[in-house]
């Protein structure tokens, strides 16, 4: 079942395309990661999904229902948009009580459960203004999760959390999807998003420039064989004669991107040693997600 579906969703501010014909779908139980630089359009899309911004063009369907003024299923959605804020003079408990009331909930245990789950129990009566950044993030998440929604729309949910908190949130997100929840999240921490998301959408300048599942993403990461010698010019010529495409990088190391070279680096070593060129370095390199992300954006600009 499709929980989120957008159809050629567009939003323009003057000549700026905050969202340009974005069509995505997210199925039940999926974690969909939204990647993009600051100002790429992630938050605009999230705000449109939450009815805070009206699209200039296109439609949004949540749980199969068109998102318009008649949409009523807000208690099936939990959200966290940009930096979480709370009423500073209110205690953690009263902050949650405000949203308990506004969500018309009828099970007071929900507050205790979420306080315990997000380890906010000991701050129950502390004013929100004294909380650390990480605990403010936890309070934001508590507001988003307290009513046990089916769909979670989370903008940068791990911002400000310490490593332990990041692992906790990761486990929490996995637990939510195991219970059938659907999650759309945005993050600039690409390594983290790849650990939790099933599918990833890369957005740049308002456009969805690539959408792929996590396995496909990992397979698309560029790999290289790095070779270091004391006579790179001769080494490149020898490798070229052997049918390899070798180039000299800025760091004075030779790079080979042939699949044969990456899979069998010992052959490269043997060829060079046979020609009396000893190696001081031989290693395989896999680009990280940040490099992949930037490469994808650069390619989209060139197109």
């Amino acid at each position: 079942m499709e929980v989120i579906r957008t159809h050629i969703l567009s939003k323009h501010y003057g000549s700026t395309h905050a969202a340009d014909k974005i069509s995505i779908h997210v199925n039940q139980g999926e974690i969909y990661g939204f990647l993009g630089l600051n100002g790429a359009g992630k938050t605009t899309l999230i705000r449109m999904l939450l009815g805070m911004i009206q699209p200039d063009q296109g439609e949004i369907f949540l749980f199969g229902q068109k998102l318009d003024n008649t949409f009523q299923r807000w208690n099936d959605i939990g959200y966290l948009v940009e930096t979480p804020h709370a009423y500073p003079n209110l205690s953690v408990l009263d902050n949650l009580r405000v949203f308990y009331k506004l969500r018309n909930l009828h099970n007071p245990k929900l507050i205790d459960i979420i306080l315990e789950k997000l380890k906010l129990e000991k701050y129950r009566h502390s004013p929100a203004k004294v909380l650390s950044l990480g605990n403010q993030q936890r309070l934001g998440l508590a507001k988003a999760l307290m009513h046990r929604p089916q769909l979670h729309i989370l903008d940068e949910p791990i911002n400000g959390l310490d490593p332990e908190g990041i692992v906790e949130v990761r486990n929490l997100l996995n637990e939510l999807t195991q219970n059938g929840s659907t999650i759309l999240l945005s993050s600039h921490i690409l390594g983290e998003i790849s650990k939790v998301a099933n599918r990833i959408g890369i957005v740049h300048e308002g456009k969805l420039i690539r959408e792929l599942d996590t396995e496909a993403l990992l397979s698309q990461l560029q790999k290289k064989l790095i070779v270091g010698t004391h006579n790179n010019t001769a080494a490149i010529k020898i490798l070229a004669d052997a049918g390899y495409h070798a180039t000299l990088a800025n760091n004075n190391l030779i790079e080979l991107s042939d699949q044969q070279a990456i899979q069998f680096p010992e052959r490269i070593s043997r060829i060079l040693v046979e020609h009396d060129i000893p190696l001081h370095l031989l290693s395989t390199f896999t680009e990280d997600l940040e490099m992949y992300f930037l490469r994808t954006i650069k390619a989209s600009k060139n197109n």
Partner: protein
Amino acid sequence: MNALQAEWLKLKNASILWVSFIAFGLAPVMGAVFILIMRDPEALANAGALSLKIEAMGIKPDWNAYLGILTQAIGVGGVLIFGFVASWVFGREYTDGTAKDLLSLPSSRTRILNAKFIIYVFWSLALVISNLLTGLILGWLLQLPMMETEQIIKQLTLYFNTTFLTIIIGTPIAFFALRGRGYLAPLGFVALTLVVAQIIAATGYGAYFPWAVPGLFSGISPEYRESINEVSYAIVFFTGITGYLATIIYWKYTDQQ
């Protein structure tokens, strides 16, 4: 009801609540000081500019004069203090950064705004009732001469009618708080209306400027009070309704960045 309870939760721990009562409570205290000075010829002689002011206002040391001072404090001071209340109730969500949390909930935006308007009205009413009670206690301590029942009813009617007129003209402040995303724009608007009201009232057209009407109605200047007519009331109600509708429409239909 749930939205109203949520608003009350937000308000009850706010120090601004008690600050507003203390600030507005200065009016009956100042009125009592006026009465004390008037009753003491020596003190009146030493009061300098204050004695001139008291003489100009034609104040006599009785209940009628004292309740008149309290009423005038609402007609003029109320525009400021109720404006401050409205600015805080509606602007705090942007200052606290919580506005976005209120936009996609089962409680509709209209319901949340209505709860805020109810809080604004009841907070303002609580302020004037508090001042009235303080005034009654101070008046009793000053042993002011008793008034006739008819006169008491007349003064209290004027007191609460001035309150309602002042509350009504506060609704546009809610719109400016949302549009200006915080306290600054609505407080600027309140300051502007106070200044412009003074100028327009001085030119003799105050009866047609909504923010001048409560002050004139309260009897701050008896000769101008007669200029208040049906058109003045219509303008006040039109301003109130326009402010309310503009607030609702703005929050319901405008993009919230």
